[in-house]
């Protein structure tokens, strides 16, 4: 179901990454992975097709290993709810190069659109702030997404968190590669790491 004035998720992600430079992007399973694929394949894209609740932690491991590079996690409200504790783990580590953007359609879109906790109860911005990420905000315009895309390039001022309410329309899937070993080794190679 579409609501007026809510952003299109594909436009949000393509705007966020329009000038991504060397940024590493981790996408949570489901529609976020399709959004990242739709924005354009890149060796520095880490697409998840499972491991629900793990996107932020994968991003944290990357951010700690590569402190000079921007690392951004793009994930949905359902995936973020499952890994809510990881916001406290990020809040404790405070990686300055880590950014998290939640595409919040208030529903589990991949499984039939069942409502999620963010539809009427859970405030992920409040959760992130309370977990020790002071730079946490709700954003609602493409201009703010552009600004977030610029801010995420600054690897000295994170971590930062933003939640954007998006239109809940289910879009056609844009399938990324789903061979995890390939995706992992391609990213490692892009960062200059040889196979074992």
């Amino acid at each position, binding site marked *: 179901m579409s609501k007026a004035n809510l952003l299109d998720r594909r436009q949000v992600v393509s705007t966020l990454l329009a000038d991504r430079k060397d940024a*590493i992007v*981790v996408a949570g399973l489901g529609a976020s992975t399709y959004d990242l694929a739709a924005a354009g394949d890149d060796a520095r894209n*880490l697409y998840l097709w*499972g*491991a*629900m*609740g*793990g*996107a932020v*932690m*994968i*991003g*944290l*491991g*990357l*951010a*700690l*290993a*590569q402190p000079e590079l921007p690392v951004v996690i793009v994930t949905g409200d359902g995936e973020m709810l499952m*890994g809510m*504790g*990881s916001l*406290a*783990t990020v809040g*404790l*580590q405070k990686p300055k190069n880590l950014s998290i953007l939640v595409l919040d359609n208030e529903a589990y879109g991949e499984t039939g659109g069942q409502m999620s906790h963010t539809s009427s109860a859970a405030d992920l911005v409040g959760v992130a702030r309370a977990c020790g990420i002071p730079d946490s905000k709700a954003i609602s315009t493409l201009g703010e997404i552009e600004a977030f895309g610029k801010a995420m390039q600054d690897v000295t001022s994170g971590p930062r968190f933003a939640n954007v309410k998006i239109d809940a329309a289910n879009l056609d899937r844009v399938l990324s590669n789903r061979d*995890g*070993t390939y*995706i*992992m080794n391609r*990213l*490692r190679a892009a*960062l*200059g*790491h040889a196979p*074992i």
Partner: protein
Amino acid sequence: MHARAETAQENSREPKAAWPEDIFSILQYYDVRQVPYVPDAGHSQLIQRVLGCSTMRGIPLTTEEEGVALLAGAWAGGQRGVLLMQSSGVGNCINMLSLTQIFRFPFLTLVTMRGEWGEFNPWQVPMGSSTQGVFELSGIRVLRATEPGEVKDVMEAAASQAYNACTPTAVLLSQRLIGTKVFVK
């Protein structure tokens, strides 16, 4: 305060156990950089060493599965890690352990065992009894150390197969090795 830690303090005239030092040395040898953990008294000496080490980052978790995902990200970024937890945390990891097969990254976890060898708390027994089976069903090789003198050999084997051969490996540190937690005197 943890009863096992109190017991250790009462026995403070005795030298610190050598086996956590053996583990720490092997982790250093393999250039392990990220050490996520959910605390356990049996890991306390190792955690202290990690937190005092300039080349390792100790990362407290809210739940153990976070550590599996963290190590996948660490490897993507070019760093090795090791996950420290107790046996009750292994069940929390099951779905996330699929990452070890999907990404084929070098996964090593060190698990202090509860629910065996004179356990007082029945709530530790079910997960302690299924820890090895859960790992094996999840595609993780299991090695076990029971005597202080064998920890070094077991750790060397585990670290080598995990980091050199990308063979996901769990080392179970027996309750007999770390000492049974004392609840009542």
